[in-house]
């Protein structure tokens, strides 16, 4: 039956606690190959500072052109200025570079690097005597580091990390903030630079700046950089670093600024996107009630990462899931399942699918808190990605639920809804549905209601669809469909084991091998 075919990534990532594979919970897989565009609602890994400074004049035509010639001339001029000894010229060159790098479109990151300017810029970071120069250099390097991994690598390899960490302590807030930003870009590049920064002591230096009087803008950058320090797996950030950051992140989660809340939530979502020990660390901070509260926010930028964090947590152990349930997550989910944004519906359905993979007590709570009606709604009317998650919820529910619970789900219209989805143009979804149908039949067998269920399936057009799937090109699907048809909608075959001697007219009666001792 379908179960044996479902051993792909998703199944192996379902939580498994003494259960069959089908009843395990889902985990997001970071290393998964993606065909899609990076998700629009995800937080950004690196950012370029393109804001203009206060009373600055608009960009001159030569700074805002794509003409290679003009850019190359400008860069030559910058090189000349920056490499000279005149502080005024240095400032000018640095500022010109920063402006080029802050253009909306096609900033010449590569050209600046290839012009060999990074060495000087890093050197300028140490010029405590000239804060303007420090600031312009920090800004330029921030923007270079915001590019591809190669760009970031150039900045790091020019020794910018210790210099930026030192700058965090700068009495000039704008310089310190720029350093925070640059470090955020470097941390966002991936686990290895992230851990490099941590090794250089970036965390205490950052946390030292987290004071009640820090302006909101500064705190936003700081929160974002902290979130990047929590980000990425393979490996995860080490436990000691997480422990260091967590109290501050928790504190930021109580801030009133939406942008800070959003990045703090993202940080939590990264920390919970891992094995159960990682989730435990977060749960122990007692943050769950606040996360659930944040699920009720208006702003999508807050709801999305909060929901992601909750989704991650309920993909953990039964106990961890129960902690989320106790914090009230089930009262928040119905509203999110009816959220106008389909991406939110999808994440909510994913969370439900993981709760439904739990023991029947937790499934009962899904019923009590009224999640079945919105779930069936999503099966009927959600967009495809949401429907897919909702189908998983049904399959998990039907494989772990009691007979009564399964009956209840069918009465809510889930069976009809998933039968409709057998037309989905997604092989895995179809197989998962067949698995759910099989589960429902198993429940019906226990109740002696198979005939009734057969009629119901036929009435809503499900039999036609299952029969149709017997022609599916995918072996697993056609076998699963065939198995259902053979088991419930038709009749069965035969097998053989030992043999008996025979003549033309008779079988020869008599036992051989009399010496053998019997022992049952």
């Amino acid at each position: 039956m379908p179960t044996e075919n479902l051993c792909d990534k998703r199944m192996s990532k379902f939580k498994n606690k003494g259960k069959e594979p089908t009843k395990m919970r889902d985990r997001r897989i970071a290393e998964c190959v993606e065909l899609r565009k990076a998700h629009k609602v995800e937080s950004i890994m690196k950012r370029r500072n393109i804001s203009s400074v206060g009373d600055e004049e608009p960009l001159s035509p030569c700074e805002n052109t794509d003409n290679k010639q003009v850019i190359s001339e400008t860069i030559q001029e910058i090189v000349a200025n920056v490499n000279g000894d005149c502080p005024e010229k240095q400032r000018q060159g640095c500022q010109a570079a920063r402006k080029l790098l802050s253009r909306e479109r096609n900033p010449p990151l590569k050209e600046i690097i290839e012009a060999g300017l990074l060495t000087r810029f890093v050197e300028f970071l140490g010029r405590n005597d000239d804060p303007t120069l420090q600031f312009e250099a920090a800004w330029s390097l921030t923007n270079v580091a915001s590019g591809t991994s190669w760009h970031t690598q150039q900045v790091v390899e020019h020794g910018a990390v210790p210099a930026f960490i030192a700058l965090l302590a700068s009495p000039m807030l704008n310089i310190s903030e720029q350093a925070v930003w640059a470090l955020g870009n470097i941390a966002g590049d991936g686990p290895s630079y992230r851990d490099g920064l941590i090794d250089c002591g970036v965390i205490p230096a950052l946390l030292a700046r987290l004071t009640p009087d820090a302006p909101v803008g500064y705190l936003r950058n700081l929160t974002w950089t902290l979130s990047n320090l929590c980000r990425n797996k393979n490996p995860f950030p080490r436990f000691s670093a997480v422990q260091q950051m967590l109290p501050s992140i928790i504190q930021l989660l109580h801030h009133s600024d939406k942008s800070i809340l959003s990045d703090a939530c993202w940080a939590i979502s990264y920390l919970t996107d891992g094995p159960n020990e990682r989730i435990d660390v977060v749960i122990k901070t007692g943050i769950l009630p606040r996360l659930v509260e944040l699920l009720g926010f208006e702003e999508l930028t807050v709801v999305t990462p909060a929901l992601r964090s909750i989704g991650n947590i309920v993909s953990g152990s039964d106990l961890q899931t129960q902690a989320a349930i106790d914090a009230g997550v089930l009262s928040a989910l119905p509203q999110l399942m009816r959220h106008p944004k389909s991406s939110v519906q999808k994440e909510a359905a994913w969370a439900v699918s993981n709760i439904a993979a739990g023991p029947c007590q937790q499934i009962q709570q899904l019923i009590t808190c009224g999640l079945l009606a919105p779930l069936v709604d999503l099966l009927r009317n959600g967009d495809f990605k949401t429907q897919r998650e909702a189908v998983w919820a049904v399959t998990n529910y039907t494989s772990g639920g009691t007979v009564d619970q399964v009956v209840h789900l069918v009465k809510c219209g889930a069976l009809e809804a998933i039968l409709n989805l057998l037309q989905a143009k997604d092989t895995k979804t179809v197989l998962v549905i067949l698995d759910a149908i099989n589960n429902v039949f198993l429940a019906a067998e226990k109740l002696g209601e198979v005939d009734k269920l057969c009629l119901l399936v036929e009435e809503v057009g499900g039999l036609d669809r299952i029969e149709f799937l017997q022609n599916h090109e995918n072996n697993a699907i056609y076998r699963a469909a065939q198995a259902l048809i053979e088991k419930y909608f038709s009749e069965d075959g035969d097998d053989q084991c030992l043999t008996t001697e025979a003549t033309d007219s008779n079988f020869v009666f008599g036992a051989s091998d009399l010496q053998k001792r019997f022992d049952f």
Partner: protein
Amino acid sequence: MELNDGNLQTLTEYLQKTLIPDPAVRRPAEKFLESVEGNQNYPILLLTVLEKSQDEVIRVCAAVTFKNYIKRNWRIVEDEPNKISDPDRTAIKANIVNLMLTSPEQIQKQLSDAISIIGREDFPQKWPDLLTEMVTRFQSGDFHIINGVLRTAHSLFKRYRHEFKSNELWSEIKLVLDTFAQPLTELFKATIDLCQTHATDVNALKVLFSSLTLISKLFYSLNFQDLPEFFEDNMETWMTNFHNLLTLDNKLLQTDDEEEAGLLELLKSQICDNAALYAQKYDEEFQPYLPRFVTAIWNLLVTTGQEVKYDLLVSNAIQFLASVCERPHYKHLFEDQNVLTSICEKVIVPNMEFRSADEEAFEDNAEEYIIRDLEGSDIDTRRRAACDLVRGLCKFFEGPVTGIFSGYVNSMLTEYAKNPGVNWKHKDAAIYLVTSLASKAQTQKHGITQANELVNLCEFFVNHILVDLKSPNVNEFPVLKADAIKYVMTFRSQLPKEQLLEAVPLLVAHLQTESIVQHTYAAHSLERLFTMRGANNATLITPAEMAPFTEQLLNNLFKALAIPGSSENEYIMKAIMRSFSLLQDAIVPYIPTLIGQLTHKLLLVSKNPSKPHFNHYLFESLCLSIRITCKANRDTVGSFEEALFPVFTEILQNDVQEFVPYVFQVMSLLLEIHTSSIPSSYMALFPHLLQPALWERTGNIPPLVRLLQAYLEKGATTIASTAADKIPGLLGVFQKLIASKANDHQGFYLLNSIVEQMPPDSITQYRKQIFILLFQRLQSSKTTKFVKSFLVFINLYCVKYGAIALQEIFDGIQPKMFGMVVEKIIIPEVQKVSGQVEKKICAVGITKILTECPAMMDTEYTKLWTPLLQALIGLFELPEDDSIPDDEHFIDIEDTPGYQTAFSQLAFAGKKEHDPIGDAVNNPKILLAQSLHKLSTACPGRVSITHNVITKNDLRT
């Protein structure tokens, strides 16, 4: 095998020989080629012949041989030798693409297949440059080459449509996208431009349009798993062009063929699929384009003709609309009254019309027409798609749609009324429309189970259906008559009983019509009506209500079998069976005539059984005749035997495999009716029933066991006295059956009958052997089913021969065997025994072991006494709900599994459950209480150990 002229010559000669029809020449040549294919250079030689030969036929032959060679040998199976040398593999991959692309089409197709077989194994890791090599050819400007590349790509990529997501698969797709997506897009644009340049050159257009179709297919494959970033970024290009192509028409590409879809239809059909894929899976991104596609597809539908060649396109297009209109956020595209009206009027209604192709099938190919129309194998027909669209629209617009259609139905009926002779198809469409509008849920068993409340089905029946049924000329307008009959059948659960009763005689009259569809539908409708249940689960239509029509019904049914084309009509035969079953005693007067007709039919079909369902219902009807008649008068059994045995003998002698199991069942039924000893005619057959050849066919086993049981029941003493030499053969059958996991229960049925019925002396000498065989099977493969049957048997033995006999025979086979069986089998497993009679046997048997077996009291077996008693109490306490009420024993045939498998079980030959203990023990619980009491009186102090395990409550009865 060297690459030289000699070898090329030899290979060519052998290839030539494989084309010669004479197997004496062909076979050895094929064998030779297979024998040398393991040699290095063999594939290279083949490709060389393919490339260089002057003979076109040899070239194609080499291509086919090469493809088959690749198919058999390319895959490297673990632990098996590599069947193609590495240098050959490398050489093939280096040359095949070029060779494929420069070959004529017939060869190109073979090589393209070969490439995709190789690709399936080697691409991308072991064939990294395949794609780039292919992509470069896009620039060749030669569309013969380009189409070769596209076709190969399609066979490489189409698996993306049905395989499960995996990192491996997605990495491959990503790689393909990186190298292929951009060039494909460029090619797509360039091809479309070329179509404009060559707008008047039909030959060029044909090539270009087949390219476009292939490109569209590739689009589908590459976009199936998920929406790739590239295609999201280039959605504008693709969708705008798809949209334009959908709306495009070119007179030059229109074909005259009415049946075969042309290039335009194929392309548009694929574009509909592509749009449906995006609408379903990538809704968010596709939303801006969707309304345009809805309009285009709808216009396409409005302007597309009725010819068969457009069927696939039209049903794809309608299915697209059907899937979109039931999604909440596209509701607005349809809710305008004008839009709805226009869809109903211009899309749905025209596609529900009865076409000339339907008319031809109705007249000339009734069987296929019926299967499509009645059994729903119409999955991609226009009518089915139109019905789906109606259902989809009704999700949000049930009221308005019903309103629009009501108007339509009325106007079509008015048209019809003006001139029925010309406009009868309007009424057909009206009926079809009402049916599709009213049907919300449907099953084979009950017809429509949920109807649209806005449609007044009864009124329509009275005003428009009944008229046709009552029309005196039953052969006029056969299609409309068939529609009317089908209406009754479809809405049987919705129509009130009075109306059904009014319809019954009319349906009976229609059994006489010339049209096969018409009288088949009449038979089928009657059959369905007769299965309907009313209050108390009794049939809705009673025999009394049928009384006035009984004779007519039976007459017409049998006469219908004589109409040309219906001599083996399964619907009629099923209606005969159902009528017998409904009418019961009322058929007795007719049986003497009817049995002759049935027997005659049986004789005819046994010459060449071809309609399994017809045959099945024929035998069911025979069983019903026997059962009903003999219930009134047992003595009539002889006349049935007289009528049937000659045909049965013929069937058995000719070994008509399909019928043999049926014959055994009917014979069992007949034999069981006899009250005195077994007739000699049956005894003569007895030795033949033990022939191994008969038992080798699994379909024979259940009915043969059943028949042997009937022999034992009626003739055990006769067998013991006149056929004692056959007893080992009989036991041999038992031995054969218990050796099989599938059939062991049948073996036990037989063994139980032997032990129960045979005089004890006649089997004494075999008893020990029987048990040894059972123990061997228990030892070698113990299954729950076997253990359950085994428990029933040993307890039956205990009841029949006594507990001491059981214990002695066990311990005689092996010391302490009895204790082992009690401890390891009876105590742990007895709770699994199911079935009322089976449990009763076990209860009585165990009671005897507990109370009548000294060894249980006085030896080391004593320790088992209390656990055995507990097991017995557990057996009593188990919920026992496997009983089948008497009246439900002969269940509806639909519920009977088996009539398609080798064993064709006849529901109406069914056997009542047999209780070998019968009235001797009515309540095993009381027996246990009494036996324990007797034991405690006989051996005071012994039973006191039971005080704490057994209370009055446990034995509550």
